[in-house]
């Protein structure tokens, strides 16, 4: 037994030595602050993830030129989420376990966020979830080192439902076709429960979940055509959404049913003429290069121009999300430095700051709550072809404040959703904008 306790003591010593750096109060300022950014660099989702990488590179370059955080410059290491499940986790761990202070910015995929959140908490590394939507992470457990600088699935799906009910209140049949993973399943669960709470007599004619990264939806489209639902909802994104819309458009499904695509703002330019007019499109947040309130503001306008010069495309919402995450990190550090009397803060202090922060990316400001969840207003519109652009723009834009459509801290969304009533729709904070050009 003595042998066992000696072993235990040795192990504890080793562990203690390993953890030592985070004990200190006043840290030494590091030379650079590396950011471990995960995004999709290969596969169908890369059309979504590569702009995020470009945005990070652009923003970091600009930020470092202005001096960085109190003189400390940022550097980025990119990890490919396209590696899949455990290969991705191995890479994430490798970067997160390197010695020295760092901030992890992860991830796009809700599945990957589910995986890395406990790992980051375990390793005591600050992890900013920059794009994944699953609300379960921050609702099921109180995290110290994991925060989300954007809205979650509840806010986004509630906004979608509100817009749909205000546009077409009398639909009777609906079908859903989502990607088969955490986001696809969770987002439908919220939407369905909220919709049935407000319109109990709606008939769900089909629930289809093709696998994430599927390249062919022909059979699903045939089935949907045969069932003829009035509304078709899809929270797909990236290459999956592109393929689905193209195939559906070729076969006329986009004209016979009302398509509701809460994540389609990221596909508008790529899809071009494949999207007809009248499709309900969301932007997961209020991220749109023609944002009615901020499109002419110098910070936003300049970034759009620089991004276009760098990549040849207009920025899409992953770009905005990336900028928001980086702005949030910078704001968190600056706020922590101020609170620490000008000294470089510890990871614990920065993590604490991130739990009660207000910062601004390129559009409306984001408010971080005490549970680490960000409150981000939601923008939705319908597609409309205009001569100025080779792809549809958003018309009849509505911006919905997050506070009206997000469950309060500590309340789980399934219960909150069940308590909704049709009176919810007559909230006067839902701001609509006159038809734009």
């Amino acid at each position, binding site marked *: 037994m003595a042998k066992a306790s000696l072993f235990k003591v040795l192990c504890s010593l080793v562990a203690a030595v390993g953890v030592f750096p985070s004990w200190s109060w006043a840290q030494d300022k590091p030379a650079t602050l590396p950011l471990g950014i995960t995004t999709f660099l290969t596969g169908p989702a890369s059309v979504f993830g590569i702009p995020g990488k470009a945005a990070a590179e652009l923003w970091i370059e600009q930020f470092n030129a202005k001096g960085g955080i109190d003189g400390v410059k940022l550097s980025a290491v990119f990890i490919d989420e396209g590696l899949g499940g455990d290969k991705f986790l191995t890479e994430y761990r490798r970067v997160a376990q390197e010695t020295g202070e760092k901030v992890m910015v992860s991830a796009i995929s809700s599945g990957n966020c589910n995986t890395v959140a406990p790992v980051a908490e375990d390793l005591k590394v600050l992890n900013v979830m920059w794009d994944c939507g699953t609300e379960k992470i921050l609702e099921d457990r109180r995290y110290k080192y994991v925060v989300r600088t954007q809205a979650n699935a509840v806010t986004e799906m509630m906004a979608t439902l509100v817009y749909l009910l205000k546009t077409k209140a009398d639909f009777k049949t609906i079908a859903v076709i989502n990607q088969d993973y955490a986001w696809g399943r969770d987002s439908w669960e919220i939407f369905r429960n909220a919709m049935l709470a407000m319109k109990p007599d709606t008939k769900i004619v089909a629930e289809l979940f*093709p696998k994430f990264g599927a390249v062919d939806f022909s059979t699903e489209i*045939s089935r949907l055509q045969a069932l003829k639902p009035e509304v078709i909802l899809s929270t797909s994104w990236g290459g999956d959404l*592109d393929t689905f819309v193209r195939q559906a458009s070729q076969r006329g499904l986009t004209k016979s049913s009302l398509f509701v695509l809460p994540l389609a703002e990221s596909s508008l330019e790529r899809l071009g003429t494949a999207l007809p007019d009248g499709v309900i499109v969301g932007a997961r947040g209020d991220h749109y290069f023609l944002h009615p309130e901020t499109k002419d503001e110098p910070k936003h306008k300049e970034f759009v121009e620089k991004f276009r010069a760098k990549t040849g495309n207009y920025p899409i919402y992953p770009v905005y999300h990336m900028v928001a995450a980086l702005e949030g990190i910078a704001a968190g550090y600056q706020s922590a430095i101020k609170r620490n009397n000008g000294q470089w803060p510890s990871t614990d202090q920065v993590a604490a700051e991130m739990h009660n922060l207000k910062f601004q990316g390129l559009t409306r400001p984001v408010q971080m709550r005490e549970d680490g969840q960000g409150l981000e207003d939601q923008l939705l519109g319908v597609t409309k072809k205009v001569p100025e652009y080779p792809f549809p723009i958003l018309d009849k834009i509505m911006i919905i404040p997050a506070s009206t459509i997000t469950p309060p801290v500590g309340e789980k969304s399934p219960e909150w959703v069940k308590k909704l009533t049709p009176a919810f729709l007559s909230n006067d904070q839902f701001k609509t904008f006159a038809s734009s050009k």
Partner: protein
Amino acid sequence: MNLDLLPLALADGFSYAGLLFLVALGLTLIFGVMGILNVAHGALYAFGGYAAASLVQFIMSRGDPPSILLVAALFVAALIVGVALGCLLEVGLLRRVQDKDPILQLLITFGAFLILDDLQQLIWGGSPYTASEVSGRLGTIELFGVTYTVYQLLLIPIVALCAYGLLQYFLRHTRIGRQVIAVTHNAEVATALGIHAKRIRLITFIVGAILGALGGALSVPTTSLVPGVGTDMIVLSFSVVATAGLGQITGALIAALMIGMARSLAVYTFPEFEVVVPYLIMVLVLLIRPYGLFTVAQARKI
């Protein structure tokens, strides 16, 4: 599911089976003649597809081409990839392992597959490739109240059936075809009778490679190409070939139809089982008939 959805499921299954058959045909042909299960077939599918997508994009950037040219481009791309890679693989690799253990032969094709997989990602990158303009140009057709694209419902099955017909004609009524059959039955005796077995093997491999690449090329206008399509396609074609019986061409047609129909029926009835269906069928068939549905009895040497 009501019965009026059944013809729809069959129509969908038909076009899916067409693509599957083309790829499986190449695979089973190669096995029949050379006795090697070519894992690199998946890479041939992927290369065929990417080459076709690039060729189509190139042609489209040079002005407004007629639709027939775009469709022809798919075949041309498949031909080029099939001949080039087929020669490279056969002469460079397979010839050297002609007399080795079948497992080593299979593993060498696996090694070739890995190399080609990375090569494909180096050349064309990780983002999706598509050529949906091709199918868009050919228009749509309505069947049982559902709109289908002409490309998917008619072109692909017709090409698959033509390939089947042409191959059967080639094997039965041309001299080289009969030599191929002879080499399949017994390579030693065929060589003793004066047939140039080496050349026959090369020709067969190239034909098989072209068919695999054609499968990939024809899939581009409807779906999109991403890294990993080759890996998925190879197991699917294995399931068709194993269900049919290795080396059975007509069997491959029937097995492809079976699996295609079953899969689309699954989407209409139990969508969660859609991905499991091909492998489930393979397992069930192999459990009942261990050598596939259509194998001929072979003499056993003790």
